[in-house]
């Protein structure tokens, strides 16, 4: 009984459910924007890297290495509490999207790039030898194969980073963890945290299942 009262208190649940539902929307919205922006930027950077220009590659590699090396929370705090010192004030949501989007882009660039470099040179040569331009070879031949190789690690990384939207709780973003943890303080019950855990599961289990379907859709036998 004590277990149920602590983690599954019906009255507390009913009271905080509306707040939590709006927090779910915030988390979902942040996750979608971060994944879309991060993957698009990572893909664009990996494509730029195939051009083989030192002037492009050095900044891309520095960006990817920094993005993967720095804990996102540090950058989030710097952006949110540091930038106002320069007269730049960003909303908590914007900081979360910028930082986590950039971190995902850093990982995604490396994952796409690994996929592109794993293709045999013969694939490029076959495309170019039949008169395709560099761009046509990249988009019709190299990228589809690289993306297929990239999907499993990308899904893992995208999941890991979208779960980091919970870091928004430290800069006042009203996402799932922030709302449930303040509800926990007010109510003195752990139930809102249980609700948060269930909400994360409700969001991410379907994503994991969808990712399996995508992997199957993009696979072909070698």
């Amino acid at each position, binding site marked *: 009984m004590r277990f149920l009262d602590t983690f599954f208190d019906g009255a507390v649940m009913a009271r905080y459910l509306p707040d939590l539902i709006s927090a779910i929307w915030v988390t979902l919205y942040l996750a979608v924007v971060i994944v879309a922006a991060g993957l698009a930027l990572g893909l664009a950077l990996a494509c730029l890297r195939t051009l083989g220009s030192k002037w492009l590659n050095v900044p891309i590699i520095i960006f990817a290495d920094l993005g993967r090396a720095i804990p996102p929370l540090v950058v989030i705090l710097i952006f949110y509490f540091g930038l106002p010192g320069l007269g730049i004030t960003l909303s908590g949501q914007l900081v979360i999207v910028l930082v986590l989007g950039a971190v995902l882009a850093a990982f995604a660039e490396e994952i796409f790039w690994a996929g592109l470099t794993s293709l045999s040179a013969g694939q490029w040569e*076959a495309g170019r030898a*039949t*008169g395709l331009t560099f761009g046509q070879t990249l988009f019709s031949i190299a990228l589809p194969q690289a993306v*297929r190789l990239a999907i499993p690690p990308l899904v893992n990384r995208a999941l890991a980073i979208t779960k980091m939207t919970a870091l928004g709780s430290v800069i006042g973003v009203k996402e799932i963890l922030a709302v449930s943890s303040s509800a926990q303080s007010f109510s003195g019950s752990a139930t809102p945290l249980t609700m948060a855990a269930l909400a994360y599961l409700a969001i991410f289990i379907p994503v994991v299942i969808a990712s399996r379907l995508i992997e199957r859709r993009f696979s*072909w036998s070698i």
Partner: protein
Amino acid sequence: MVKPPVLEIAGLEKRFGDTVVLKNINLKVREGELVFVIGPSGSGKSTMLRCCNRLEEPTSGAILVEDAKITDIARRDLDKMRMKVGMVFQGFHLYPHMSVLRNVMLAQIKALKRPKDEAETRARDMLERVGLSEKADAMPSDLSGGQQQRVAIARALALDPKVMLFDEPTSALDPELVGSVLKVMKDLRREGMTMLVVSHEMAFAREAADRVIFMDGGLVVEHGSPEQIFGDPQTDRLKAFLSRVSQGAE
């Protein structure tokens, strides 16, 4: 009357850093001719072939395809030229994520700008020509090596090339699959396709080649009819190469 050369290589030189890979190569391939290039590995045969569509950039010298000097073409204008020079690789290099039919259609649509239905008709014709019309919807991984190489030949032919380059087309194949690829090449020759072939298939060279070129150390060492090259080799290098090949060492 002597037919005009479709492919002409004049004074071709290729260096990788300080290493000279090709020295003063001169060669004409006339319309409808099958010219065979033999020589030990590392002799520069493949590099010469790859210079002909500038997958490898020549260091100096000229390459002409139907009087168009392809060595003068700006890099960004290479794509049109490459459609005129069909290339078949040792490793086939079919696109694994596309059906056989799409493999043969892709460059027609993207590079030649052929309408899709026309490209499909052409692709099916070419697949029939290499004896694989029933495999149009298969994926490359469902095919044997010999079948994959025939699809690669169809992919190049679909672009109406003026000359076909074959870079050791049967070297990666199991012995029992070699014949099917050579048969397609013989058919092409009968139909009048101009071909430059790097290969170790000596029996095929004797039977089908108009001329044979022996390369060693980046040079054309001997040049003649198959009877001359195989029956009456003049240089010690060619004699040594032929005896190594007949013992199965190459």
